[in-house]
């Protein structure tokens, strides 16, 4: 457990750094918040401006402003969105579930598809599938994700109209709850596939390399010599070690996955945080933008901590629990 505590302490330190960065960005932005609000209002009297400055604490020294800002964040006050006319926190919490649904679905799809492709191509390194994986991973890397989305949009909007290409739900609403669930899933297909496409490429390449490595090791030869079926050798013994680099990559790339969500949500009008970021850029709505930056950092950190815990489960050599003796994962007694 102390390892987890240390991780959490470090995460809180990093979050504090994100808050300070946000504060600096607000300071650097041309015009203070009050002048932006006044601009939005279309002008205000000198008295009102001075009163608002005092209200926002802009007449105080910078270090005190920073402390006040940190205090506000700690109490969940992320400011007020000029454009959406509601507190930033409410706005973000409304949009967060859609993003989490999209990102998690894409991640699971990418991991399962990518790993399976990696495993099968590692079994026959010179086979057709193996070449396909190599080419596919290059293509997935080189195509801009929003462009992949737009291409799918062309195909499924005009040629095969079987999936909805915009939004998260039918505009007319759904009569039953299972109708609604099906509706959301139906809308989820294209955004999730688009977002997953880049990562299927990464994970298939990665798991192919790592499975090739693992399948050549001594304990796999032992397992084969014991006469185990090929399926048990691959899925029971090799896969667990072969997955380690994939898990590392999930943790490292989670931030990029979220960045990809910004583009994909914009393409498919998916009402999540990414779409909100796009809308707040159009309106120069800094408080909302900085709130999203803060929450995305939290998401990435949660993902990193979960990855770390998953490590311990997959690879007993890394886990915090003391074992009597380190033994290769998958080699059950």
């Amino acid at each position, binding site marked *: 457990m102390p390892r987890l505590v240390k991780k959490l302490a470090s995460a809180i330190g990093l979050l504090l750094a994100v808050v300070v960065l946000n504060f600096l960005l607000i300071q650097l932005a041309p015009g203070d918040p009050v002048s932006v609000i006044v601009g939005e209002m279309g002008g205000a009297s000198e008295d009102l401006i001075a009163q608002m400055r005092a209200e926002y604490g802009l007449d105080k020294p910078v270090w005190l402003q920073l402390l006040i800002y940190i205090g506000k964040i700690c109490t969940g006050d992320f400011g007020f969105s000029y454009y959406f006319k509601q507190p930033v926190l409410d706005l973000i919490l409304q949009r967060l579930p859609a993003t989490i649904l999209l990102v998690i679905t894409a991640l699971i799809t990418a991991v399962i598809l990518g790993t399976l492709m990696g495993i099968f191509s590692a079994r026959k390194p010179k086979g057709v599938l193996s070449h396909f994986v190599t080419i596919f991973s290059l*293509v997935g890397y080189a195509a801009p994700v929003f462009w992949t989305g*737009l291409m799918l949009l062309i195909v499924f*909007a005009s040629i095969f109209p079987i999936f909805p290409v915009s939004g998260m739900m039918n505009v007319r609403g759904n009569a039953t709850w299972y109708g609604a669930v099906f509706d959301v899933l139906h809308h989820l297909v294209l955004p999730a596939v688009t977002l997953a496409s880049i990562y299927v490429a990464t994970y298939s390449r990665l798991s192919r390399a790592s499975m090739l490595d693992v399948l050549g090791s001594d304990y796999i030869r032992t397992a084969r010599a014991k006469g185990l079926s090929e399926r048990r050798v691959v899925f029971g013994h090799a896969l667990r070690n072969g997955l380690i680099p994939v898990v590392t990559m999930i943790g490292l790339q989670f931030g990029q996955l979220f960045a990809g969500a910004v583009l994909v949500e914009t393409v498919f009008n998916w009402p999540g945080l990414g779409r909100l970021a796009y809308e707040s850029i159009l309106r120069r709505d800094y408080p909302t933008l900085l709130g999203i930056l803060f929450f995305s950092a939290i998401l990435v950190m949660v993902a990193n901590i979960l990855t770390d815990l998953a490590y311990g489960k997959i690879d007993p050599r890394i886990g915090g629990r003391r074992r009597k003796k380190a033994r290769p994962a998958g080699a059950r007694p």
Partner: protein
Amino acid sequence: MTTLPDPIGPKPAHPATEFMRAFARNQSAIIGLMLLAIVLGTTFLGPFLYPVDAYSMVDLPFAPPGGDYAPLGTDYLGRDMLAGIIEGGRATLAVGAAAAVISVVIGILVGSFAGFFGGAIDALLMKVTEFFQILPTLLLAMVLVTIFGASLVTITLAIGAVSWPQVARLARAEFMRIRKLDYVAAARTSGARNGYLIFRVILPAALPPLIVAAGLAVGAAILFEAGLSFLGLGDPNTMSWGLIIGQNRNYLLDAWWTVTLPGVAIFITVLAISLVGDGINDALNPKLRRR
């Protein structure tokens, strides 16, 4: 008189020759090089071979490819798509290259100091690196460009400023490995100062993988610029591939070519860069050379 066999064996080839041979044997790297030549040729020779102004109207909006006035069709303002792709390539490639240089310079500085000094300096610099890694880079760049205004310079600086952590980690690992080698100890004993050791003794040895990383960073920066332009954060006065896609996106279903073609250009460029990068990497890595 008979010639005796040479006791040392044939003279080994110069490392550069060896590298060229290994690279030339790699089919996909050669394909990548050819694609890259096509992209650079189109971008830099294109204006002379196809002298059409990318910013002026040549036909009705959304003229399909194969028309009399525009071979690749026109965009939502009736501008020539081919001229736009040629013109946009320059900005896209320039931003990609410049942003890659910035991120590699920052990455090498951070990584070399962390790897060379170790201890508290390493811990501190790695904390900073980790900090930049938990922030989604695209989002941070979006915020920076929004605050400082969208111009080619701010976009380049923003991309460079957020994408150095990977290079820093790579440089750190290389420096940690090389600083323990004997020749570094010899240089240190002969009285070399830290600055000399870092930049003149260790850096040249650490450079090959960093050059590959720099090449791949160009591809990543091109994708990054395209994403920002697509979100409407591109420089509105300079045509780039991402900007063409972003501007025509709403008319996608009526004029597929306006969005598809610039995307193909981005795809080919990034693909070429990563094929060449992988090729250089394999040729530099003696373990993979004999495959």
